[in-house]
């Protein structure tokens, strides 16, 4: 583990393994441990993997402002520079995927390939209502039974649920519902109480919520100019399938995989499936990159161009 100062903010990171570089970017209300068991450990057998805690998350510092995807792409840039990584595959879940996408738009030369796991892209999905959930009636019943409230006209359903789930009155409920997909946030080891408190502090004492909602310049036009080979992995019951449809329409080199029977947290719920798909994609990209860097000289000898 190590730390860097990124634009005045202490960011916690960790590097493991050997090989080409992969950076894993977690989503909101979690930290780099999201990746550890099911993704980092299998990946380090073939890659050098860097994970870090987003600002305001995990062991990283929580500044009063600066939580847009552009700000966080800046942190990623500083980490890559600090570690001397010229280019890397970026794998992001949820908000982490939006950071990866934004980074690819700002620094295309530093990105080898993109994996976006259940990422909501705000330019492509400005609103997220409960009714966007494929099983929304079943989910709505469960939410109501538990005493959570998400209004029909709520356009930020996930943020609304996260705030309620983090509240101290849900402390016991979180323990009881551990393992249930709706309760994955803050339902990890130890009941996720510190994680929940950290989330409440972030949304109540910083500009994070407004910053999360900002496009910060990542418009559809900018997205349509991202040429990287991209793999979009979404859950069949995801709340952000509108983003997947938008990506397939606007990203020039995007292919998709939809994991059956799971929603937003599919990397945790179907970890083997996720890592198999990601490894196959990354190894395929690396193999093609190696071939394209080779060419035949006039004498017919294979030469390494770079």
């Amino acid at each position: 583990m190590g730390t860097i100062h990124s634009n005045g903010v202490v960011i916690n990171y960790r590097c493991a393994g050997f090989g080409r570089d992969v950076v894993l970017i977690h989503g909101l209300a979690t930290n780099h441990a999201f990746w550890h068991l099911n993704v980092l450990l299998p990946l380090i057998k073939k890659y050098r993997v860097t994970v870090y805690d987003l600002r305001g998350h995990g062991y990283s510092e929580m500044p009063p402002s600066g939580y847009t995807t552009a700000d966080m792409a800046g942190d990623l840039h500083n980490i890559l520079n600090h570690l001397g990584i010229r280019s890397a595959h970026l794998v992001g879940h949820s908000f982490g995927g939006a950071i990866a996408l934004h980074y690819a738009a700002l620094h295309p030369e530093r990105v080898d390939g993109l994996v976006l796991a259940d990422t909501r892209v705000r330019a492509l999905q400005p609103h997220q209502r409960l009714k966007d959930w494929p099983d929304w009636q079943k989910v709505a019943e469960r939410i109501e039974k538990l005493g959570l409230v998400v209004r029909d006209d709520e356009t930020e359903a996930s943020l609304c649920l996260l705030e309620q789930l983090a509240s101290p009155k849900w402390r016991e409920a979180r323990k009881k519902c551990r393992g249930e997909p709706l309760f994955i946030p803050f339902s990890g080891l130890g009941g996720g109480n510190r994680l929940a408190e950290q989330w409440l502090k972030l949304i109540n004492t910083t500009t994070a919520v407004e910053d999360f909602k900002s496009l910060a310049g990542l418009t559809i036009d900018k997205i349509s100019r991202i040429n990287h080979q991209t793999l979009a992995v979404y859950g069949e019951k995801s709340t952000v399938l509108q983003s997947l449809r938008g990506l397939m329409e606007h990203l020039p080199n995007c292919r998709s995989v939809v994991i059956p029977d799971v929603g937003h947290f599919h990397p945790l719920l179907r970890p083997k499936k996720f890592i198999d798909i990601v490894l196959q994609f990354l190894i395929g990209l690396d193999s093609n990159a190696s071939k394209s860097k080779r060419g035949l000289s006039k004498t017919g000898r294979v030469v390494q161009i770079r």
Partner: protein
Amino acid sequence: MENEACKKKITKAEILKDIVGILEDMTSDWDMEFSGPIGPETRLMSDLEFESIDVVQFIVAIEERFKRRNMPFEELLMEDGRYVDEITVEDAVNFLYTHLQ
């Protein structure tokens, strides 16, 4: 490279001392109800309020202290593909005693 701990045939008591030291360092500025000394019976989740990120930090600290990488921590941490609900200091000591020999 064989680490020094192995050469000396490290004892459980020595491992315990190191583990307790790591945990005391990690939790020294935490605001938690647990106030007793950390010992074999101490539970990482229930007593020290460990969350996933703390477990990862704990593993990294162990790897650095014992200069060993690639120990199969999954055996300590996972059951049926997910994190176990509880780990005691003694669990960690026994795991290390097995894998440091």
